[in-house]
């Protein structure tokens, strides 16, 4: 059995070096070409299709196929992606910024690079410009009207409403729930209201598997450890065989599932329901105004 391997291996040692050199040289050429292409596009500061009336319509189709899964049918956002009709966008609003973000994705977020995620199709440069034309056509020109008193909202967030016992904003607050520093741009106002009034209706949404590493859903979990302790908290990460969780005192626990006495998952959020008798509509608006102010200041 060993014979052919040795002989083929031995014979091709020199050849292997030569051959690897060729494709690597070729790769170098490709990389350079790709770099030059990207550079040319990055230098394009204005949408070349901006004056084309058909571009926005074509861009709407492309948007539906490629973007609407997270950003919603009308680009108004959803539980996953930001409202793109807002003039202010956290990661830039120039044509060049938008092209870059669509083309290359946004590191540190679930926004994937064009064509890499299996959601939608790989777009050509022209198709990306069509999408930008579409976004311009639906963009709300006026800045968002303040919906409440941000200063009062901040007081509530860190005070009576007790949000900060579980949520962090700009490094200050609790760890059990999602960090809300960027939630003002990442989610629509409607989505924020829903999350406060009916937190279990929709947990922080998971995404498709391709971006699963970001998809902490803050499911509630209760385990009984091998020595009989019951621990309740949120799931940090989980696979078929292991569980990472944070308990309500912010302790991290790492378990092998088969060693646990029991494990129970629930989509009833640990976040309390803030109904209008606990938190008035005006106070809620103030808190949302605060969250918006954090990302638009």
């Amino acid at each position, binding site marked *: 059995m060993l*014979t*052919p391997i040795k002989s*083929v291996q031995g014979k091709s040692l020199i050849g292997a070096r030569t051959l690897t050199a060729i494709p690597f040289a070729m790769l170098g050429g490709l990389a350079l070409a790709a770099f030059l292409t990207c550079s040319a596009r990055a230098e394009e500061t204005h949408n070349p299709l901006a004056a084309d009336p058909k571009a926005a319509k074509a861009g709407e189709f492309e948007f539906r196929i490629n973007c609407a899964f997270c950003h919603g049918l009308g680009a108004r956002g959803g539980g996953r992606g930001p409202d793109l009709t807002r003039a202010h966008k956290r990661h830039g609003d120039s044509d060049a910024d938008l092209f870059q973000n669509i083309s290359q994705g946004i590191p540190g977020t679930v926004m994937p690079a064009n064509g890499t995620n299996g959601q939608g199709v790989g777009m050509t440069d022209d198709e990306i410009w069509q999408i930008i034309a579409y976004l311009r056509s639906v963009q709300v020109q006026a800045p968002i009207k303040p919906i409440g008193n941000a200063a009062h909202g901040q007081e509530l967030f860190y005070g009576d409403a007790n949000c900060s016992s579980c949520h962090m904003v700009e490094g200050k607050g609790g760890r059990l729930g999602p960090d809300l520093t960027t939630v003002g741009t990442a989610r629509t106002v409607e989505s924020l209201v829903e999350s406060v009034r009916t937190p279990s209706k929709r947990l922080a949404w998971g995404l498709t598997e391709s971006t699963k590493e970001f998809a902490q859903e803050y499911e509630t979990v209760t385990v009984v450890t091998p020595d009989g302790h019951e621990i309740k908290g949120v799931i940090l990460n989980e696979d078929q065989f292991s569980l990472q969780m944070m308990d309500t005192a912010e302790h991290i626990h790492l378990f092998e599932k088969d060693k646990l006495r029991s494990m129970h998952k629930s989509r009833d959020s640990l976040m309390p329901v803030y109904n209008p008798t606990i938190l008035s509509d005006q106070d809620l608006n103030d808190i949302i105004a605060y969250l918006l102010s954090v990302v638009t200041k």
Partner: protein
Amino acid sequence: MSAAITNTTMNKLPGICTLLLVCCVLVGEMQAQVTFERLLNASNEPQNWLTYSGDYAGRRFSTLDQVNKTNVHSLTAKWVYQTAATGKFETTPLVVDGILYATAQDDRAFALDARTGRPIWLFQHPLPSDIRPCCGRVNRGLAILGDKVFLGTLDAHVIALDAKTGNVMWDVVAVDYKEGYSFTLSPLAVKNEVILGVSGGEYGIRGFIDAYDADTGQRKWRFYTVPGPGEPGHDTWEGDSWKIGGAPAWNTGVYDPGSKQLFWPTGNPSPSNRGEGRAGDNLYSNSLLALDADTGKLNWYFQFTKHDEHDWDATQVPIMIDSGDKHLIAQANRNGFFYVLDRATGKLISANAYSRTTWTDSKDAEGRPVANDRSSPTPEGRTVCPGALGATNWMSPSFDSRTGLFYVTAREQCDIFSTAPQPYDVGHAYYGSAYFPSDKAEPYWGALRAIDPASGEVKWEFRHLSPTWSGVLTTAGGLLFTGDAEGNFIALDASSGKPLWHFQMGGAVYASPMAFAIDGKEYVAIAAGSSLYAFGLP
């Protein structure tokens, strides 16, 4: 004999080394030749994995039994090969006499020492910047015949590489990629032909299956999966819709040496999620085709989903199953049903749901599930199960004749399908629709399901935390291997579904496993993340 030749002995014995080296080279030459007879009798050489599905029947079953239920707990990683590429890594390697051949993202191909994972050669096809891959810059593998391996590319080339060097032997253009065509599948080598089906159902292509002469690259036949004027089935298309009717054939079919027929599955009609403008059954979309392997002539067809509006490609690998005097072919279809057909006639024998389905309430006279009137997409959107990615997808199923079970990776996901009328524009995405997760739906999940082909009954399932894109391998060791979206490679008892072993690979699996042996040692290999892993006993 020549196993004894090491560099050391060669240095010590210069007098005989030349002679022996010639012998070695000759042995190497002989071993490199993969004849059609070897492909036909692949089960005689279980140490090798000669075709995408391991045999012409599509079973993805290995008769190797060294790794078995009693020792699988000690299985360990033997080597890891990293592609240095990003994106989904969907390959199934081939192994021939100790050399592993595989593809990677962006139309890379490579040969490795299957014992060490060290590369022998690397090849990358230079791709234009404006290719149209619908679903990632992926490739699922090579075919091998003679001294060549064969690659279909994202810019619709068919390329033959020298198996020893990776040198290009021939390179032909099947069709203009700018119109939305591409190849992502592992070709199938049959006789002296290389068979490929085209991708592009998201771009309003006209699908086809091609056969190329393995020596020259000359095209021997093409079967258009959408019939032209005057051909049978043409009247199942409204007006000129046939010209952009889709029906790609983007996954690898199987070959029946008895009848000398290919059984090749086809995908969705275009636009994928909007039926308006293409009234009719839309033949031969979402069908299984029985084609004469020599001529590409259609002998019979069976259409699983007529006039599809949910992107339910029927491109899943079908498996030929012989039971007594019955010659069957079975497919777990993306529409949620498990179909068994008579492969002599294409007649439907049974169709049973293996996942949640809401699109049908009844069957026609042949026993085929018929779409109800609540599932057609509307502008406002309708929730339908399975969702747009289907109850399964391209990940390979497996059939183990010892357990008698058909194993499939299933996905439980419902989606809202809404229409988005869209004009056709050459080379641009052409869906006619968008789909969304349903707010009301429970989180997606997945399962490995074991189906009894005789009854269509799901005998057991192994639930995955989330849906996986991993296919399935079964072995004579009584084992089933599969991967998950969280990066685990898992061995189950193929009889019961009980998990016996797992290994965290650090990247999601978008591939189907395979098995091979060298020096009498069994290996199981699978791609995960951007790495190819080989496992064996300590």
